[in-house]
Structure formats: structure tokens, C-alpha cells
């Protein structure tokens, strides 16, 4: 193996990867940095008002990098953008049409390569942050389906006696999946599901805490049963592995957890 040959090859490949487009208003540098959605990052060098400005030309804001749109990820993308902005010392400004430009300024030509390097790294980071789906789609879907099925089942059997996502008056922030008010007695219900053991156990822990607080309520004498419906068809249902947490749950509930496949048991309890 000839090291020099490899070195030369890598150097020339990396170097030749950088392209340029001469535009009327700027020099576009098509950098050698690419994003996970297979775009090479471009930065634009322009001389305006006696300043050398290196900018993304509004390409991130206008989605020229063609990143997917995931709802509810704005918060995390803003965090990523802010962190990268401060790390690479990138500034931003808005033009009169409301388009955001990220940029760096240079005092002289010598500073341009470094600014191009920083801005390109910044763009790669931000565009990649847009490409990632932060929410676990499978988990969200399963959770939503189970919640809906359980709600429908309770509504079908207890009609207006059931209140969904409800709290006891004195602990408004502690929501139960359902509270059934039957013959002046309250039945508190939580749902436990999850596509993985971690998600499932998180639900178990939430149920434990909620029931722990419920017994401190001034309505505690009115509470007839504290019940948990567990989705035993979900992938995260691993009773042996989660035995310890199930044991803690049993201490806080009035009955054995009701398995979804045996949901008729609820009708005997309530």
C-alpha cells in the first residue's frame, strides 16, 4: 500500500469536490459538505456596503435543501440552530420579505475560507436537524390507538358516567385516563401501554404516582376503586421483566391490573 498515493487521491478528491458558480450578485461556493438528505451545502460570498459577507442566501429558511416537514419538532430545531449559531459564531438577519439570512462577515480576503468553513458546517448541522424525525411514530400510533379503543369501550359501557382525561378537583394537574362516577362512588382508571419496555414502564410509573397522590385527595373516601388497564397486546408488555414495577403498582391499586384481552373483568368491578 502506497501511503502517498492514498494521500494524493484523498486530497485531490476533496479539493475537486468543491465547485463554484459565478452569479451576478455573489460567488456561490458549492462546498464539499453534504447533508443526510444528499444535498451539497452552498454558501455565497458577496461584497456589500464595504463588507465581505458570507451567507446562506436564505436557502435554509426557504427550504431550498428540501427537508421534510415534521410537526412538533420546531422546539428542538430551534435549540439546535441556536447552539450551532453560537458555536460557529453565525449571525442572522431578515430581509424585507421576511426571509432569514444566516451569515458571517470578514474583514479581509484571508478570512473568507474560515468563514466559508464555519458557515458550511453550520448549514450541515441545521439541515440535518430538520431531516430527523424526533417522535417515535410507531409508539405514537400504538398509544393513540389503544387510548381510543379503551375510551370507546368505557364510553360504550358507562356512557355519561365516564369522564375522560379527568382530574380530582383538588389535584387538577394529575390527570387520569378516565374517572367513572357511579352511585356516588369514584373509580379512577389509568391506561398502560408502550411499544417498548421503557415506554411501557414509564406508563406504569405514571400510574403509580397518580394513585399515590389520589389517596391524599380529600375525596379519598369516595374513591371506590383504583384500576389500571394494561395493554397486554403491546410489544412493551413484559410482565416478568417489569415484575418489580408491577409489584409497586399492585400496592397502589385496589385490584390486579386489568388486561386489555380480559377487559370484560372491568364490568364486574364497576
Amino acid at each position: 500500500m502506497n501511503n502517498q498515493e492514498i494521500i494524493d487521491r484523498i486530497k485531490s478528491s476533496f479539493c475537486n469536490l468543491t465547485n463554484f458558480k459565478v452569479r451576478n450578485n455573489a460567488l456561490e461556493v458549492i462546498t464539499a459538505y453534504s447533508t443526510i438528505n444528499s444535498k451539497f451545502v452552498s454558501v455565497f460570498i458577496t461584497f456589500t456596503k464595504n463588507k465581505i459577507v458570507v451567507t446562506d442566501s436564505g436557502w435554509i429558511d426557504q427550504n431550498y435543501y428540501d427537508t421534510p416537514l415534521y410537526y412538533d419538532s420546531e422546539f428542538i430545531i430551534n435549540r439546535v440552530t441556536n447552539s450551532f449559531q453560537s458555536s460557529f459564531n453565525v449571525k442572522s438577519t431578515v430581509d424585507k420579505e421576511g426571509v432569514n439570512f444566516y451569515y458571517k462577515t470578514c474583514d479581509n480576503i484571508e478570512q473568507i475560507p474560515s468563514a466559508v468553513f464555519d458557515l458550511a458546517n453550520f448549514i450541515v448541522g441545521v439541515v440535518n436537524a430538520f431531516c430527523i424525525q424526533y417522535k417515535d411514530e410507531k409508539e405514537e400510533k400504538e398509544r393513540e390507538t389503544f387510548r381510543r379503543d379503551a375510551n370507546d369501550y368505557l364510553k360504550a359501557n358507562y356512557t355519561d358516567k365516564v369522564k375522560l382525561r379527568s382530574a380530582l378537583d383538588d389535584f387538577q394537574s394529575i390527570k387520569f385516563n378516565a374517572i367513572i362516577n357511579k352511585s356516588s362512588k369514584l373509580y379512577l382508571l389509568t391506561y398502560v401501554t408502550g411499544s417498548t419496555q421503557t415506554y411501557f414502564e414509564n406508563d406504569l410509573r405514571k400510574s403509580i404516582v397518580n394513585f399515590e397522590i389520589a389517596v391524599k385527595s380529600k375525596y379519598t373516601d369516595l374513591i371506590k376503586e383504583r384500576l389500571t388497564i394494561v395493554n397486554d397486546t403491546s410489544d412493551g408488555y413484559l410482565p416478568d421483566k417489569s415484575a418489580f414495577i408491577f409489584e409497586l403498582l399492585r400496592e397502589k391499586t385496589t385490584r390486579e391490573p386489568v388486561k386489555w384481552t380480559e377487559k370484560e373483568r372491568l364490568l364486574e368491578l364497576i
Partner: protein
Amino acid sequence: MNRTNKDIRDQFDFFRELITVDKIVLSKTIHLEPKKSNAKWLTGQSSVQHETINEEISFTVERSKRDSKYGVKLRCPSLTGEPFFRFDSDGPAHRNDFPEIPLEEQSVTTPHFNSYKEDGKPIAYKNETLKNEKEAQIIAEDVNFGVSLFCMESNTKLSTGDFPSIIDKAPEFAFTAVQNINFDNISFE
């Protein structure tokens, strides 16, 4: 990030037929109107009649009001949600990330076409016209030239054999003029 289009991979013969067999654009002229979802863009559409495929196919032209960037797309919703063939006049270079392509040849600058390989992976390329820098620039600056080139490349035309013409319904500026961002109007600290 897995960018494989599984719909196209699984029905590649159908995809190939969509592209290679002749198609007729039904509207002689396509009027660009403000895009509802993005005020900075204009968009216009026509239905397409395929010689052998009866599925719904659409031909879309989109143009930015800010710069001269435009795109032309062919869609067949029953095959896949994404356009199955596209032209980008401007914007970032695409990376053809395939190990058999040397690194320095993996960057395909705009203007370029976007299509798919047999495994459903997107691929960008320039045809002979676009490989010529001068011609590529002329095409990038004029949406009607770009539409003609796109039609030739994708075997699409009008029933007369001509290509559709693109008309801006409410021109806010001289239509053929190249729009450029004026950096002097932006305040850089």
C-alpha cells in the same frame, strides 16, 4: 437517512413505463398563479395523458418570485407521493452517494434532473444540454426553455408536438428578467 422510494423500487417496471412511453400535456399554456401554501412561489398545473397508462398524472411548474429558481415535476399519485421525475433550475447540488462513483463526481450541480434508480434511490443527472455550461445557464434563466428541455427528456409534449408555454397571469415584474437578491437591501451587521 434512508431516502429509498420503496413505491418506485417495488414497481420499477411501471415507473420505467411512466417515463419512457409518450405522454401528452393537455393544457397548451400553463398559467402561473400564487401558490397557496407559499406566498413566495407561483405554481401552475396540467393533466397528462399517458399512451399506455390510465392512472392520473400531473405536470407542475413552480417558480420563485424572489429569484429565478423554478422547478418542473411529473407526478403519479397512484405510484408514489413524491414527483417521479423532476427538474431543478437552481438550488443545492445533489449528492449521488454511490460507492462506484468517485467522490469528486458525486456532486451534481443545478440545473439538473432528478430521477430514480432500480433500487428506489434518487439520482440526479445532467443530460448533454445541461453539461454545456453556457446552455445550462440560459435554461436556468428561462422557464420556457427549461420546460421544453424537461418535456424532451421525459417524452412529454402537446398533442401538436410542441411544448406547453408558461404564462405568468399577473406579472409583477418583467417575466423573463433574471431576478436576483439585492444584498445591498439586507442589513448585515
